[in-house]
């Protein structure tokens, strides 16, 4: 009974507050501010700083965040094995119909394997979804100074209005891409 509660997908009213509690958890553990995308910057600073001023800082002072990111990888592994959900997933019928039109018929709780796989990297569609998409995530989050965790959760929790601007722009960008551009990419 207990395990079946853990392995089923968690409802938003359980998951949301748990994600929100990450904010005081990190503050109480060591005055650390929740924000994951800066790890991409720290990796640049650690591995390939060049002579770029943006990467010339003491990333070791922020190494706690790399441990946090490492923990996310381990947590993802635990959730996908020990707590794995074996049942079917359901999505909105309109989305299912739209996806079927692109040849995406297998619905799971993570990434559609028909779109995200190694051979697909060498197709234009896969390149745009994974490589171009990833590039935009890295470029955009640092340009914005934060991501969903740093702005939408930590920044809003601290009532920073620039974080509200950023969050609205995240959503606006997502709406534009998902509704106006992505359909063309998925038809490729």
């Amino acid at each position, binding site marked *: 009974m207990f395990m079946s509660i853990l392995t089923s997908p*968690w409802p*938003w009213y359980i998951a*949301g*507050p*748990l*994600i*929100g*509690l990450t904010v005081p958890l*990190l503050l109480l*553990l*060591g*005055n650390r501010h929740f924000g994951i*995308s*800066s790890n*991409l910057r720290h990796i640049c600073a650690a591995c390939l700083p060049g002579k770029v001023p*943006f*990467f010339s*800082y003491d990333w070791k002072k*922020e190494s*706690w965040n790399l441990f*946090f990111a490492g*923990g*996310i990888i381990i*947590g*993802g*592994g635990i*959730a*996908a094995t020990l*707590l794995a959900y074996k049942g079917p*997933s359901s*999505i909105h019928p*309109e*989305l299912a119909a739209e996806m079927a039109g692109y040849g995406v018929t297998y619905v799971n709780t993570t*990434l559609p394997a028909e779109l995200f*796989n*190694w051979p697909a990297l060498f197709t234009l569609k896969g390149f745009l*979804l994974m*490589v*171009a*998409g*990833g590039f935009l*995530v*890295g*470029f*955009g*989050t*640092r340009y914005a*100074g934060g991501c969903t965790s740093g702005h939408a959760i930590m920044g809003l*929790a601290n009532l*920073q209005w*620039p974080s509200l*601007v*950023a969050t*609205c*722009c*995240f*959503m*606006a960008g997502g709406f*534009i891409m998902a509704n106006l551009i*992505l359909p063309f990419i998925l038809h490729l």
Partner: protein
Amino acid sequence: MPLSSNTDFEVQSLDTSTDTNHTTKKAPWWRQLQYLAAGIFFGIVLIKSEVISWFRIQEMFRLQSFHMYGVIGSAVITGIIAVAIIKKTGARTIYGDPITFQPKSFNKGQIYGGLLFGFGWALTGACPGPLFAQIGAGFTVSMVTLASAILGTWVYGLLRDKLPK
């Protein structure tokens, strides 16, 4: 790096006024393991809540499901309440250090960068946290997405002074 040029909301050590409060840099290395544990907790929540699901992200941007709005909304409300309590009580860390907050300023990067990240979020179905969780969950191809995100960050760092801000 002077404070005024720290446009990053996520790198506290570059906020000069809070830097001095960081006693953790002298803390024993094993204290880092508590962040590893916090990350494990967070990674499990990301997977089990389907926040890492490409399909849930598509539903969100098509207004077809309340799930993601419920997750993010209740996370924000929980965070607001928690931060308010910490500020009101003057709570300290479990090691007795002060908890500090740095006001952040607006720049156009939050608009342009925000839109660009939104594009990437809808394409990959992942923000940076879920990218790490996907890799852990066995989606090895997400390592390419992560590598590309690191490259994007690097190119931003290179072009930073030429971009509108």
